[in-house]
């Protein structure tokens, strides 16, 4: 039933030509964040290192999780660029985002990241928007949906968890002391890895070419930002935001995931009225990297209402 509704929705929406996309609008908060002189040139592209591929009539926005950056989508995103407008970006503080834009108050809760996602949707999306969020970005997508209802047509959540810490009947998989031990590890690797938390690359057997240009280019995180983001991610409880969210949602749940255990996937499926739970045979928290084809297969099925034959 909802699929037909979506098709109607699609018919009523002509794709917006790219040159019709308005230039960035600045709010007072943005000007404060970026400093008055830089305000005029401030640009989401610069702030979030936004990359756009493809020009399909619907938009897939990929939002990475804690600890990495948009490069983790390389195994998954390319398969959709022939039929979708694909938008990749780095959360502020991660990857190649503008570290100057990192505002400790704004990013002291996931709501700050959700505001950024809505700005990216406003300025880059064509047609209906499907947010593909890994891990904590599933909750950033949820909050963006709550902040601007109607802006997101569907969610694809990979390894989502609304709350990591066990509370009462709810099983998140962690205790508070586990999160403190993660913060300790981040702390001690701050010294081990000098100023940027990007590990050195060693020569890779059989792949010597994959060295120089990629050195330190993945998952670069400033240590203080990594610690705050870890706290914001693992201490947050978004159950009140997720319960009853009616936007169609695909939950991609790994069969063996320490960070998002099966019980959490079941919980989300139960509280999201329009959700599909899809188990992916995978060990670890990054099925989009270790089992990309299983993920894209599930996504293709879910996305069929938004896929139209691409006309050259």
């Amino acid at each position, binding site marked *: 039933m909802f699929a037909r509704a979506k098709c109607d929705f699609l018919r009523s929406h002509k794709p917006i030509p790219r040159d019709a996309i308005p230039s960035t609008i600045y709010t007072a908060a943005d000007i404060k964040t970026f400093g008055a002189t830089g305000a005029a040139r401030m640009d989401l592209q610069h702030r979030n290192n936004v990359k756009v591929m493809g020009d399909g009539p619907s938009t897939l926005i990929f939002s990475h*999780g*804690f*600890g*990495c950056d948009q*490069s*983790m989508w*390389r195994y998954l995103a390319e398969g959709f660029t022939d039929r979708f407008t694909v938008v990749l970006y780095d959360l502020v503080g991660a990857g190649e985002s503008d570290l100057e834009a990192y505002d400790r108050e704004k990013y002291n809760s996931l709501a700050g990241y959700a505001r950024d996602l809505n700005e990216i949707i406003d300025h880059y999306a064509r047609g209906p928007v499907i947010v593909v969020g890994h*891990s904590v970005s599933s909750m950033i997508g949820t909050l963006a949906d709550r902040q601007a209802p109607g802006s997101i047509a569907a969610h694809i959540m990979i390894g989502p968890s609304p709350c990591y810490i066990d509370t009462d009947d709810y099983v998140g998989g*962690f*205790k508070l*002391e*586990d*999160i*403190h*031990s*993660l*913060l*300790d*590890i*981040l*702390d*001690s*690797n*701050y*010294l*081990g*890895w000098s100023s940027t938390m990007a*590990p*050195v*690359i*060693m*020569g*890779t*057997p*059989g*792949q010597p070419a*994959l060295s120089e240009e*990629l050195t330190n*280019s*993945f*998952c670069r995180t400033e240590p203080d930002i990594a610690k705050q983001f870890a706290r914001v991610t*693992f201490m947050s409880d978004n159950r009140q935001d997720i319960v009853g969210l009616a936007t169609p949602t695909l939950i991609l749940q790994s069969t063996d*995931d*320490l*960070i998002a255990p099966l019980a959490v996937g079941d919980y989300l499926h139960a509280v999201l009225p329009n959700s599909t739970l899809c188990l992916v045979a995978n*060990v*670890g*928290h*990054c099925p989009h*990297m*270790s089992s990309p084809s299983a993920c894209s297969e599930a996504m293709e099925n879910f996305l069929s209402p938004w896929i139209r034959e691409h006309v050259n």
Partner: protein
Amino acid sequence: MSTDQPLLPDNQMLFDEAPCGLVVTKEDGTILRSNQTFSHSIGLDAQALIGRRFQDLLTMGGRIFHQTHWSPLMQMQGSVAEVKLDLVHHDKHIVTMLLNGVRREHASGAFYELALFGTKDRDKYERELLNARKVAEDLLREKTAAESALRQAQAELKSAYEEAQLRASFAEQMVAIVSHDLKNPLTAIKMASGILAREERTTRESKMLGHISQSVNRAERMIADLLDLALARVGQGITLSPSTVDLHAFVGASVDELRMTFPEATLVHQTVGTGNAWLDADRVQQIIGNLVANSVAYGDLQQPITITSRVEQDHAVVSVKNQGPVIPDSLMGVLFEPMIRGGNTGTDSRSVGLGLFIVREIVRAHNGVVSVNSTPESGTTFTATFPMV
């Protein structure tokens, strides 16, 4: 020749006894092979490790870190180096190790080859550095918080002070207005009782008219004091109409008047030197009146009150001295401020606590100074010194 060379260790021995832990896993972390050095580090033999996942040997924080950080990196960039990890030894104590790892592709996937180095002393040192940094950061935070609290307290104090000043100024203006407005009804009462007194009265009526007259005089003095306070605080200050006067003659006349006012006291006038002074005679008479009234209120009335007028080359000096209890130290600093009174003098005080304040203001208006000296031996003396113009 070559037979003299000792045999190099074979590959198996090199692997097993390498000076670092060596572990080979599948992509999902399942351990396929590990060496003796690693077994020794974590207290599990190689056979028992086969089939377990490497990440399951880590602390919980380490496992999250593995999932969110170095596992994606191994996949994307094919290697990691110098990652610090906490492993849990078989006997449950924590072993901190540095990890270098590479990913080796093969036809059906990839192996992860991991080398692990003990880093006990280095780790200890790094933790000390980390703690020192934390302490420094905490101190900085405390300092910043204290500074901001101080700034806030100062701002609050300033605003409270400004508010208090505003209130005080309002109250003083009220005093000025009310005192001025009270003069008219008092004048009416005085005139009416004067007219009533002219006709023949019974003894009781005359006595009551006397009470009315005394009370009106007292109220007039109080109002005069309040008006002087208002002048000094919110107006232009006390204004003078000075003239040349014979100091001793004028002080003597004032003392005579005060003898009528305070019949219960013995007033003695002493003079030193001779000559004129440039003073507002009415105002200086007010000074003497206030000081004598104080002496009567607080001094020992069994002993005389001495009023001294002295003419010197540069100054004219008027002082009033009484015997009796000394002025407490706690009062000395604020004696000349308005609304300050000495010890208990009963409810029938002649003033509202402005006497000495007005004395000081009048002396100041003359560019003079007033001082007080109070000891058990020599009694209490107030001295007003006026410059010769």
